[in-house]
């Protein structure tokens, strides 16, 4: 791998940019690997990267049905934050956020992490109490957040109308080191770093079955033939249930559509990320100038990557009151992703009933922010065969034991 640097740009500028290599190789699969990871989205690639970086395991293949980062990694609103109430959530999301801070340097690939600050608006008295509690919890967890006044909200985001009438802004939970990153670059950066370590990234290769012997996995049947492995990682988000079904176990997961949309590009007007959970809308401005807007999920199982129009209508209707200038904007594009929702709205990073088979799923509506932390925890689980401190609480058996990490109650909404 040739390193990217200012000198590389200067060198290539002098020879008509003829010397750039492909960022990652596209090899044909070998007969077997130590580790096969199904799903080359952010979480799968991050898992492979930290397997190599932290544990020296590089005989790894990451196989992908479509193209790299073409699922939810390419379909989210790129928000990064770690202001969670429950300790296990705060730990893994804060790990991820702190890894994002230096990810561009680690990967030698600009992921454009922009810690511009994330504010979660409190628009009811119930939310004020909830976010005060979260701010106190975050202080104990070592996550830097604070509860700020409506005046401070207005200073940070002048385009906001804080006076209501229906949804007045009563304060906000402010995480100054939250922000956004370039979603494609995260997938591409990890893929390039994995490829440089000698791992195989195999795109257009769909898993058709999981082969096992004596209760332990031996490999996967794919559209490119059988690929053997000692350990299998399933990191496929919306289609987790389908791959788990091939491996012979069921998951407490349901797949629903979550939509996002962007406006036409406009001049810079908002340099923070704003989330409004009462009305369930969130917004930031991209580097291109588009307002990137996300809303709530549909309420029914759906694999079509498109959602219901009325959810978009509800999101925009509510956001227009808080951001009156939105009413003058045209919306350019709208899309949907298939998110895997668990019963307690927290992820699963766990061993499975099948030996040497591990699963990382259930990130629901908030997976992008967790990519580095999720990969870190999953790599530790797969390398050692036992979960480390970050993954321990996110096991598949917590539903039977009643040990939920109940962010659905903590947040009041899907998050």
């Amino acid at each position: 791998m040739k390193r990217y640097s200012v000198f590389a740009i200067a060198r290539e500028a002098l020879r008509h940019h003829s010397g750039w290599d492909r960022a990652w190789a596209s090899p044909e699969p070998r007969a077997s690997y130590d580790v096969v990871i199904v799903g080359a989205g952010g979480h799968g690639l991050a898992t492979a990267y930290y397997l190599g970086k932290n544990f020296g395991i590089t005989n790894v293949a990451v196989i992908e049905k479509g193209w790299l980062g073409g699922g939810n990694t390419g379909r989210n609103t790129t928000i990064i934050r770690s202001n969670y109430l429950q300790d296990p959530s705060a730990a893994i999301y804060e790990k991820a956020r702190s890894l994002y801070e230096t990810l561009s340097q680690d990967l030698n690939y600009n992921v454009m992490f922009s810690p511009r600050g994330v504010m979660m608006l409190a628009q009811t008295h119930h939310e004020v109490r909830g976010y005060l509690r979260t701010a106190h919890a975050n202080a104990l967890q070592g996550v830097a957040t604070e509860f700020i006044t409506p005046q401070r909200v207005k200073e940070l985001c002048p385009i906001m109308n804080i006076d209501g009438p229906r949804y007045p802004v009563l304060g906000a939970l402010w995480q100054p080191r939250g922000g956004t990153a370039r979603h494609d670059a995260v997938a591409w950066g990890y893929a390039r770093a994995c490829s440089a370590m000698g791992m195989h990234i195999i795109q257009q290769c769909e898993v058709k079955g999981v082969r096992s012997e004596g209760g332990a996995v031996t490999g996967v049947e794919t559209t490119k033939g059988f690929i053997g492995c000692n350990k299998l990682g399933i990191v496929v988000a919306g289609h987790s249930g389908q791959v788990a079904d091939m491996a012979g176990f069921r998951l407490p997961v349901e797949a629903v559509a979550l939509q996002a949309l962007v406006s036409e590009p406009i001049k810079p007007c908002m340099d923070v990320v704003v989330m409004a959970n009462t009305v369930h809308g969130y917004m930031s401005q991209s580097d291109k100038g588009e307002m990137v807007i996300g809303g709530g999920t549909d309420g029914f199982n759906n694999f079509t990557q498109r959602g219901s129009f009325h959810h978009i209508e509800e999101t925009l209707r509510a956001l227009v009151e808080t951001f009156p200038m939105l009413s003058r904007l045209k919306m350019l594009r709208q899309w949907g992703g298939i998110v895997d929702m668990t019963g307690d709205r927290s992820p699963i990073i766990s061993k499975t009933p099948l030996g040497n088979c591990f699963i990382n799923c259930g990130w629901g509506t908030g997976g992008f922010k967790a990519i580095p932390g999720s990969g870190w925890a999953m790599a530790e689980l797969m390398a050692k065969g036992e979960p480390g401190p970050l993954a321990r609480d996110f096991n598949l058996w917590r539903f039977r034991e009643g040990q939920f990490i109940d962010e659905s109650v903590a947040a009041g909404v899907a998050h």
Partner: protein
Amino acid sequence: MLTLTCPCCGVTAEETELAPGYEAHLKRFGPGSTDAEFESYMFARKNPKGVHFERWRHAYGCGKWFLAARCTATLEVFGTYPAQTTEPPAAILDAIRARRPDWKA
């Protein structure tokens, strides 16, 4: 936009009038059941990519619960039927097989 016909009042309603209730025909387990049975009833879901049986409520209409057979991969609706059934009626199964010959119940 998803449209379903409520078998209780006969009104064909679109989804803003309906409230989804997730998987239908779950067998309930309560006191006296094993942990695994209770977990399976509470949390494990079929979540199929394809034919799915679901509970719906005609929330802004007659208010009654009913069941629907729907394809989660195409959003095609095969039919709706009353909630007072423990398994899909033959007419619904025939409608599904007519459209999905490979489908296995």
